[in-house]
Every structure is written in structure tokens, then in C-alpha cells.
């Protein structure tokens, strides 16, 4: 597996090579320090896969990805980024990227991703998969929390962030008994039985942050 890497930070390139070296079947054939250089190397060198930083000086991000995909449509490009997955993740995949990995998870995920992508697949980390799932959970199977009314949703959120009934009542200008009624209705609608389950639900669906 001949790999082209591009990152403007020497320390990251060094780290990447170290991580990739763990797999003897892969070899780094080119190291670009910015987007334009990456494109140039892609044209000159023989390579099977590219690993690019999302933000580099000059051409970068989705623009660079688009250019590479246009000239080398069949070859996988993995995008590494300092930005979290919810910012660029799904855009990168839609633009033809073979995978999106945040830099801090590179040591654990990069070799798996490289192997996966080399066989023509796409690499999606578990946290990105959650985001993608929530993005396409549109009408047909509406997420349960989408069925809550606006007020129920807010009460649910306040409960999920650990607020007491009395605090919620004060915050929302309602009586505590009304809030309790809301709580019962929310738990029923979400099919849950306790506050703990509610917290778990909210975290799993990334409703709290």
C-alpha cells in the first residue's frame, strides 16, 4: 500500500508515519506540507491511498478533496482533521472522502481505517456513525424525542442535565406539579422508566452537550 500524506505540521507528519509504520505492508511514498504540494505529488508519484489534513495553507479541505477525486476517482482519500466530526464529517463523506478521522483518535483508528479503505470500503468511526444516523433519521422513523412537544422537550433536556423538578418549575415559570406531569408524559412517550434512563437516552442521541 503506497500512501501519500499531507499535513502542514511536521510533528503530525512524523506521528502519522510512526503510526503507519506499525503496518509493514504500507509505505509512505510522499509527504506534502500543503494542499498545492499534495496535488502536485499526486500527479507525479505512484500511490494507492492519500491521507490529507483538512485545513492546510493554500488549497485544502473540500476543495482539495474535490480536485483529487476528479483526477483520481478510484483512489481512496482519508481526511484527518483537528475539527470534531460533527463539523465536517458528513460533508467529507458526501464529497467522496473515504473516511474522516479526528487527529486525536488517529493513533487508535488510523491503521484500522487504512485497512478498511484499502479494500475499497469507507471508514466511519462510531461517533461519526451516530451523527450520520441522527442526520438521516428523518420522517419515516422519526426519533422518539421528535414527538415531544416543545415544552416537553425542554423539560426533558432540563431533567437530562440533572435539574430537580423544583428548579425546572422555577426556570420555566410553571408549578412543580405541572412539571411532574410533564415528566410522566415524557417518560411514557420515550418508553423510559427513570431519570437515569432519560439521561442515558439524551446522551446517546446527543441531545445534551
Amino acid at each position, binding site marked *: 500500500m503506497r500512501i501519500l500524506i499531507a499535513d502542514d*505540521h511536521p*510533528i*503530525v507528519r*512524523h*506521528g*502519522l508515519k*510512526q*503510526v503507519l509504520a*506499525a503496518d509493514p505492508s504500507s509505505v509512505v511514498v510522499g509527504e506534502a506540507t500543503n494542499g498545492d504540494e499534495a496535488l502536485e505529488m499526486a500527479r507525479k508519484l505512484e500511490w494507492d491511498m492519500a491521507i490529507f489534513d483538512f*485545513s492546510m495553507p493554500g488549497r485544502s*479541505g473540500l476543495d482539495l478533496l474535490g480536485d483529487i477525486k476528479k483526477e483520481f476517482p478510484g483512489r481512496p482519500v482519508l481526511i484527518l482533521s*483537528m*475539527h*470534531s466530526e*460533527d*463539523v*465536517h464529517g458528513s*460533508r467529507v463523506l458526501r464529497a467522496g472522502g473515504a473516511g474522516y478521522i479526528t*487527529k*486525536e483518535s*488517529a*493513533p*487508535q483508528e488510523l491503521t484500522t481505517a487504512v485497512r478498511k479503505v484499502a479494500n475499497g470500503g469507507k471508514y466511519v468511526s462510531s461517533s461519526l456513525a451516530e451523527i450520520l444516523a441522527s442526520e438521516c433519521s428523518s420522517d419515516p422513523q422519526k426519533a422518539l424525542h421528535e414527538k415531544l412537544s*416543545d*415544552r416537553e*422537550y*425542554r423539560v*426533558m*433536556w*432540563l431533567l*437530562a*442535565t440533572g435539574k430537580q423538578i423544583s428548579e425546572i418549575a422555577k*426556570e*420555566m*415559570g410553571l408549578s412543580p406539579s405541572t412539571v411532574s406531569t410533564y415528566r410522566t408524559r415524557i417518560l411514557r412517550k420515550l418508553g423510559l422508566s427513570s431519570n437515569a434512563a432519560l439521561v442515558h437516552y439524551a446522551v446517546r442521541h*446527543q*441531545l*445534551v*452537550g
Partner: protein
Amino acid sequence: MSDLAQVAGVERAAHVAPQGGEAEGGAPGLAKAKILLVDDEPKSLFALQQLLATLEQNLMIAQSGEEALRLALKNDFAVILLDVRMPGIDGFETARLIRARDRSKSTPIIFLTAAADEMTSMFRGYEVGAVDYLMKPVVPEVLKSKVAVFVELFRKSERLRESEDKLRRLAAHLISVREEERAHIAREIHDELGQVLTGLKMEVSWLAKRLKDKPLIEKTDSMCAMIDSTVQTVRKIATGLRPEMLDDMGLVAAVGWQAKEFQKRTGIRCRAKLPAETKFDIDVSTTMFRIFQEILTNVARHSRATRVDIELTLGAEQIGLEVSDNGVGIQDNELHARKSLGLLGMQERALLFGGDVRISGSPGHGTRVSVTIPLSRKPK
């Protein structure tokens, strides 16, 4: 001259040198105020000029209503002295026409009239915008002090306008400096600090793979976890200063992202109606984005809303943003009290680009904020 000093204001009079009264009119650094004298008789004009010469202002003369109108079109006068009886357009008509123009709609006019003209004409004069009347023959001291009052008034409003303008420019400057600084710090933190942490993580991971000793592996694992959480913090700080989305993907994406973040952070449901993602002028985008953030901050702080509806529209000539919530509704007195610097800040930011912020609310029916910013105009 000493009576003039009194008129000009105690403050100023205190600085007048005892022997020289000239200081009043020609204070250093101040342009002379323009005074227009209108009379069809050259003799009267000459007399007025002589009388007012001691004020050391810029005296302009006109011998007819037409001439006066022409001059009023091109100049801002501190005061106009207008003879009532003139052939052609008389004084009243001239005054009416002068006051009808936007530029001169509040220019003070003093009518000069022969005593024989009596009360009826005086009333007519006030109707067309006279601020005062002087009977001919004019008493020199009275004329001079009246004119001096208007000169002073003119100067004061000029100074007020200047300082308003200065404050506005200063505010604009501060806004752009702060924005640049935030962008710079965000980039430094995110790129430099973030990348080094990434490198560090890779080094520690490399080390971890070569360790056999269980306690040592536990140490490197906890180091990795610490680095991860530090990266998260760095990311949070950088995004808080300036979301990278705005620069990478443009306003539309940034608004969508911010709306989602807001919902996650407050539990207030956000529904955003957004146009297709495009990028346009980054300064306009930044302005709109910051205003949007301020609106959301206000929603979270004051509204008790459970829902926010956002609509961003992208026209050929302007971008529009509508944010409405279902909260308690901003009260008119809150709006007018202008206590909220946040609201003022939004307005100033929009104004900088020739834009506009409108806020309306009614108790129990939520608050609605509409922002429009033209795309073509760059700030002054």
C-alpha cells in the same frame, strides 16, 4: 462685545482675554459658521453686514428669494435673516421653500419686518417656520445677541454630530479589532496547540505499544485520556472565539451549526430554514453571525422560550435573518429603555454595513428579530 460673550455662554466667556473680544467667533480649529442675510435693498444688506461683522462668522448675502434658495441648497446655515417684503418670491414663500427641503428643514430663520407689517404677518411667519422676529429698524445689540445664540447652537449640534460620528467609528474599529484578535487567537490555539497535542498523543501511543509492564501501560493510557480531553478543551475554546465553520463553509452552514449547538446547550428547540450553502463576503457573514449569536443569547437569558424558529434568506442584494421565539415577549419599555447594550451592539454592527435590526414583541407571544444586511455595501 461683552454682552456677546455673555450670550456665547459663561464657560467660554471665562476664557476671553480682557482686552480682546475676538476669541468668541474664531475659536481655534473651528470653521466659521455660515449666516445668510436676505434683503432686496443693498443698503439694508450693507448695514446688516456691518453690524454682524464683529461676530467674525462667514456672512453670505442674497438680494432675492430665488438667490437665497439657491444658496440654501448648497450650504448649511447657522441662521438665516430674511426680509419679509421682497419683490418676486417674498420672505414667507422663501422660508416655506427653504424649510421644505430636507437639508434645511430645521435651519433657524429670523424675519426682518417693518413695524407697520403688524401681527397678522407675524403669525404667518411662525407658520412657515420662523423662529424669531425683528422689527426694523433693528436694534444692533439685540440682533447681534440673537444671531450669536444661533451660531452657538449650530456649533454645539455640529460638535455633537462630530462626537457621535467619532464614537460610531471607534465602535466600528473596536468591533473589527476584536474580531481579528479572536480569529487570530482561535487559529493559534487550534492550529499550534492542537497540532502539538496531536503529535504528543501519537508519541505516547507509540510508547504505549512498546510497553509490557501493566502499571506503565495504565500510565500511558491515562496520559492519552488527558491529552484527548485537552484537545476537546482547545477545540471548545477556539470554536467559542470564532467558529471555524464560518471561514471554511460560510454563513449558512455556520448558522445551521450554531442553531444545533444552541439546542444542545439550552434544550430550547431550534428549527432552522436555511438556503443552499454558499459563501459570500466574509465580513458581512461575520456581522450576521455575531448578530445571530447575540439574538440567541437574549433568547436563552430572558425569553423562557421552548422554541426558536430561524429563517435565513439569501437574496441577490441582501441577506435577511428572522428569529422568532415563543417566550414571554420583549416589552416595549425594555426596548426603549435601551439598557441592553447587547441590543445596541446588534444595531451598531448592522448599521456598519448599512443594515437594519428590528425587534418586536408582545407579552405572551414571543419576540421576533428581523435583520437585513445589504450585500453590496462595504463599511465606511
